[in-house]
């Protein structure tokens, strides 16, 4: 039995026998006189005379403590993980799941592959970034109490981003099995409660078979749209102890849920509205779950020859598609029908809002505009955290997975298009294409302003990076707050060339999530590139050690404006509103004095470092060296000292 056996003969399986012994002892031990509670009268005691086994148990010395076992619950857990095709488990090692950890390494021959992380936040964010590139979850493991508390911010990002992550937290359920000290500090009755408001499901299995069914159920729930993180508490005894009856255990069969399509009648009604519209606009955020998602959206947009505004929560629509009007949001005001697909914050996208003393808002669309929604987001909401956003009135609300429903909607549209409408669509498409081209040209013109300035403009930085990687099979997997030059200047067109943002806007996402995406890209031979702010970087610089240790190639550009710049601007606005000086608003909002040398930090973690680059003329050579390092299998960090935005 495990070392946690608190006294001979007191294991769970000996519980009843122990109780019998207590009863026998009570029969022969007189109650303490005086203040003792009245006991059952002695003449009512009917204890049996101890039999040979009880006599032996009381008189024989305890048996020797077993020191070896030939199986462990962790072996079975490993087998279940592998049955689901979970490729990696990102971890920060912890004794409360040491049974599973050891089993994966030895029984599973390090399959799923352990990815060592130096913080739980990094481990979850890596899993988030991975899932958005690979289209399936990996696991993450941590201490169920102290590790899970570190992991919560990243789990919240994954929740808001609708990304599946399987999180394990070790626990020691039975109090009498906990060692003195840390095991009490690291155990809980309901350790999943701190993440329950931002996970789709959680469980604490009490047996191995229970674990098997819980994990398969968790995997299914996590990967069923709307996707999201799940949590399983792992009892240490269950992981570490021998499997009581291996022949009785089975690995449950996993069959993925086929995502639901929108009701056919509702789809037909939506098609009717869209075909009749003069200026329909498609608004989207997290449509593409698979490589088919973008193709499905392109097919609908091209059939309608309508504008698409992409909030870029996923790789929904090519950046240079003529119908992409994402940087012409004013056209929402001209729309007569808006089709909103898998939107995260529909009200926010359809509203003009002023962050003034009196916060005012009003619709950005004209009266009478018909609003259709298609998506599954609202099928699973929780109460506490308000990530569901403000209520938005709509006219037709279709519950159905966007990607899965798009082909049916496109076919329904095609059936309604006659020659007259087709001609109108073509004319509309030509106008939109012209506007798109003008927008691209204007972006290039705007990018020239301050071209040779120091600090370097963000436009110059993005243009220089693209020039270095454009001929690679690149995958852009991260950007800093409001850095949109890539989507304005780059030709982003493949399903893996963008994977969205953090979801919850929790700082600390970019660096580790980008590395997780790079881990997924590695086996495909893709060149991973990401941008991230300096503030974000400092939430998890240890990510780079993981990159070095596991030899994960990635080009990471630090958009180093030496500030938490969004907050800097907010503070300036506060000072101006209050009629006070704004010159001190760098207090508490900037990261300077001393300036952080991110290239040196990178080299200290074992990866390639370039910078700080302050002169734009030095950028191309530095990037060239960094690209070479990445192609050689390294992660490379380029610290670019930039203007704020």
């Amino acid at each position, binding site marked *: 039995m495990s070392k946690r056996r608190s006294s001979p003969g007191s294991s769970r399986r000996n519980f009843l026998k122990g109780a019998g012994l207590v009863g026998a002892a009570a029969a022969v031990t007189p109650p303490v006189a005086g203040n003792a509670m009245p006991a059952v009268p002695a003449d009512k005691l009917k204890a049996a005379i101890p039999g040979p086994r009880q006599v032996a148990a009381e008189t024989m010395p305890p048996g020797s403590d077993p020191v070896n076992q030939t199986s462990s619950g962790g072996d079975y857990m490993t087998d279940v993980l592998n049955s689901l095709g979970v490729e990696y488990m990102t971890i920060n090692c912890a004794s409360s799941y040491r049974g599973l950890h050891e089993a994966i390494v030895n029984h599973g021959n390090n399959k799923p592959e352990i990815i060592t992380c130096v913080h739980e936040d990094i481990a979850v964010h890596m899993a988030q970034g991975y899932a958005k590139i690979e289209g399936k979850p990996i696991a993450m493991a941590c201490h169920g109490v102290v590790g899970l508390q570190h992991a919560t911010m990243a789990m919240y990002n994954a929740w808001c981003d609708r990304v599946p992550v399987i999180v394990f937290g070790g626990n020691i359920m039975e109090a009498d099995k906990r060692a003195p000290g840390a095991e009490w500090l690291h155990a809980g009755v309901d350790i999943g409660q701190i993440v329950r408001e931002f996970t789709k499901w959680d469980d604490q299995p009490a047996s191995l078979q229970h674990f098997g069914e819980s994990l398969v159920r968790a995997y299914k729930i996590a990967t069923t749209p709307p996707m999201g993180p799940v949590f399983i508490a792992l009892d240490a005894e269950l992981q570490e102890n021998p499997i009581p009856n291996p022949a009785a255990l089975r690995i449950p069969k996993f069959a993925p849920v086929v995502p639901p399509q929108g009701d056919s009648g509702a789809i037909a009604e939506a098609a009717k509205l869209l075909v009749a519209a003069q200026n329909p606009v498609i608004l989207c955020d997290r449509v593409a779950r698979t490589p088919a998602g973008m193709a499905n959206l392109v097919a609908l947009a091209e059939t309608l020859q309508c504008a698409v505004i992409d909030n870029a929560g996923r790789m929904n629509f090519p950046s240079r598609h003529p119908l992409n009007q994402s940087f012409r949001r004013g056209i929402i005001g001209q729309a007569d029908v808006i089709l909103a697909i898998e939107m995260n914050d529909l009200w926010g996208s359809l509203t003009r809002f*002023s962050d003034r003393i009196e916060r005012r808002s009003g619709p950005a669309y004209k009266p009478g505009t018909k609003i259709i929604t298609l998506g599954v987001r609202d099928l699973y909401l929780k109460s506490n955290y308000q990530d569901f956003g403000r209520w938005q009135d709509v006219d037709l609300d279709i519950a159905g997975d966007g990607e899965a429903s798009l082909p049916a909607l496109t076919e329904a549209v095609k059936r309604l298009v006659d020659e007259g409408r087709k001609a109108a669509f073509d004319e509309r498409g030509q106008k939109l294409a012209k506007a798109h081209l003008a927008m691209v040209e204007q972006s290039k013109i705007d990018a020239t302003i301050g071209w040779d300035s120091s600090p370097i*403009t963000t436009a110059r930085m993005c243009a220089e990076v693209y020039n270095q990687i454009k001929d690679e099979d690149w995958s852009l997997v991260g950007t800093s707050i409001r850095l949109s030059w890539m989507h304005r200047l780059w030709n982003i067109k493949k399903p893996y060339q963008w994977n969205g943002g953090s979801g919850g806007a929790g700082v600390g996402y970019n660096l580790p999530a980008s590395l997780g995406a790079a881990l997924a890209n590695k086996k495909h031979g893709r060149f991973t590139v990401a941008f991230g702010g300096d503030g974000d970087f400092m939430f998890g610089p240890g990510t780079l050690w993981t990159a070095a240790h596991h030899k994960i190639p990635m080009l990471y550009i630090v958009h180093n404006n030496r500030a938490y710049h969004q907050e800097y*601007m907010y503070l300036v606005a506060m000072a101006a509103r209050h009629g006070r000086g704004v010159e001190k608003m760098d207090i508490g909002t900037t990261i300077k004095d001393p300036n952080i040398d991110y290239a040196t930090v990178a080299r200290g973690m074992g990866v390639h470092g370039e910078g700080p680059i302050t002169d734009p003329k030095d950028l191309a050579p530095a990037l060239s060296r960094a690209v070479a390092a990445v192609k050689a299998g390294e992660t490379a960090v380029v610290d670019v000292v930039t203007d704020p935005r």
Partner: protein
Amino acid sequence: MNRCKRIAVTVLAVTAMGLGATGLASAQDAPKGDAANGKTIFLRDGCFTCHGRSGQGGAYNGPAPILAHTALPFDGFKGQIRNPANDMPAYSDAVLSDKEIADIYAFVQTLPGAGSPKDHPILNN
């Protein structure tokens, strides 16, 4: 952080519309300002945080317009500072005097505006 996602019509567009309607004075009619002092204020008092040190524009809650070599007349420029459209903070005369606004205006006039993308081949990838 949801504030980051707000949609705002650009200040530039709103301001330009207003100017078009009222026919305000041109840049040549602006009071003479001290561009050097304007630069100091521009970098000290937070203008650069949204509009960029080169006046190239940026983003706050929504897009922050380009100010480099602005074509905005001074009165419109000042009006936007005193009573801005959208989310730009209002700068009262307790924070920025008329003279200081004139200095900032003079400074942004000195900033080179947009060039041609043809001069930067990497913009044409």
